[in-house]
């Protein structure tokens, strides 16, 4: 799933710099990246590159894991056996995506435990979108359609990101992601073609998830000072605003095709640009959610912390058992 380089509005926007590094190595590194080559775990890389990647990849991983919660909320209440099975498969995929990404981040020298600790303490972020509640079944449709849709737009170009393990994880993820979006859209289609209550449920979900989905693409380009460096290093392939515009252009016709209306009075096709004009995002809301004040942010973190803490005895038991077996094997 998607995440951005999430920064507090008030944080200093200084680029990530470190102590003096070998300028020859840096030049060679920049040349390789510019030539579309891949950087692998053992290669030399600037500290800033490593740090940015660890943050970006781990936040992406956290997003997948936290993302299991709003959808997991509806597995037991899915309204048909098929929907239940598909949702289980999707959430399982999301867990898997989190695993691929944690694995990629670990190649950069951070451990899973460190990353989890960062998430639970609030130092590490996850995609803002998962701080919103799934109150109806239609929300599950909206998430698949809009949130996975947004994720796909971000992830497809990242298949050629410069860091090898991240690129390979993205290739795997992209193969699996389009099923997620189609699953969600199909739910919306069924609701839109259903009873008045179902239509209402679908429209209501779109009303609540539209703007948070636009916020997934992060702050406007003018407030993203690290974009230039990230683009040069191929950690970011397109800018926030570029992707956001693409999302709007692609998604509005999909809404129209099923008779739903996007909750934006300023939405209008601009013939000259060949794109949709759309309204201003509520940036106060965006930054509040980034700060950890989203509607169900507390619930999400609490759930993850509780799962981790209440599972400590299980992890310990597995370690203890493995040690006993190893000991016994050595003694033979």
């Amino acid at each position, binding site marked *: 799933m998607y995440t951005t380089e999430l920064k507090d509005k008030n944080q200093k926007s200084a680029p990530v710099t470190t102590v003096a590094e070998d300028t020859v190595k840096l030049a060679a590194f920049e040349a390789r990246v510019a030539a579309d080559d891949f950087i692998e775990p053992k290669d030399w890389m600037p500290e800033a590159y490593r740090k940015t990647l660890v943050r970006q990849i781990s936040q992406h991983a956290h997003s997948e894991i936290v993302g299991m919660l709003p959808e997991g909320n509806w597995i037991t209440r899915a309204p048909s056996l098929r929907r239940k099975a598909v949702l289980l498969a999707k959430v399982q995929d999301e867990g898997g995506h989190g695993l691929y990404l944690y694995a990629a981040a670990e190649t950069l020298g951070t451990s899973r435990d460190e990353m989890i600790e960062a998430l639970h303490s609030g130092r590490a972020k996850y995609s803002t979108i998962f701080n919103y509640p799934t109150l109806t079944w239609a929300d599950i449709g909206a998430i698949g359609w809009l949130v996975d849709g947004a994720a796909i737009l971000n992830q497809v170009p990242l298949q050629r990101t410069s860091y090898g393990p991240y690129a390979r994880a993205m290739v795997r993820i992209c193969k699996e992601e389009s*099923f997620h979006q189609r699953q969600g859209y199909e739910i919306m289609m069924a609701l839109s073609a259903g009873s008045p209550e179902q239509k209402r449920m679908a429209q209501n979900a779109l009303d609540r998830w539209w703007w948070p989905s636009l916020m997934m693409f992060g702050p406007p380009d003018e407030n993203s000072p690290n974009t230039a460096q990230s683009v040069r290093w191929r950690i970011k392939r397109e800018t926030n605003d570029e992707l956001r515009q693409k999302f709007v252009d692609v998604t509005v016709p999909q809404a129209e095709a099923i008779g739903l209306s996007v909750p934006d009075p300023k939405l209008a096709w601009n013939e000259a640009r060949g794109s949709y004009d759309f309204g201003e995002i509520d940036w106060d809301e965006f930054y509040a959610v980034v700060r950890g004040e989203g509607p169900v942010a507390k619930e999400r973190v609490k759930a993850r912390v509780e799962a981790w803490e209440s599972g400590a005895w299980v992890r310990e038991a597995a370690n203890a058992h493995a040690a006993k077996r190893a000991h016994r094997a050595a003694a033979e």
Partner: protein
Amino acid sequence: MTKEWPLWEVFVRAKNGLAHKHVGSVHAADDRMAIEAARDTYTRRMEGVSLWVVRSAEIVASDPGEGAALFEPAADKVYRHPTFYSIPENVKNI
């Protein structure tokens, strides 16, 4: 904090005749759990006939290695594939 489960690298052979590919890693406390975690994570879409897991600490080479272990994938989860869903022709980009 509990001691972390060790990290294992996972290698999958997609089908006989092909080489094993390094696909990522999992955390597991022991080798049996590592195989199962690898299977549950990396072969959900019939991607493998063969799985190897190796403790990351044992890996010496800097390039992806080779390996294999047998596993039977489930062949019926066709709803994971985009083609399972019917989306009308007039709806684009999905």
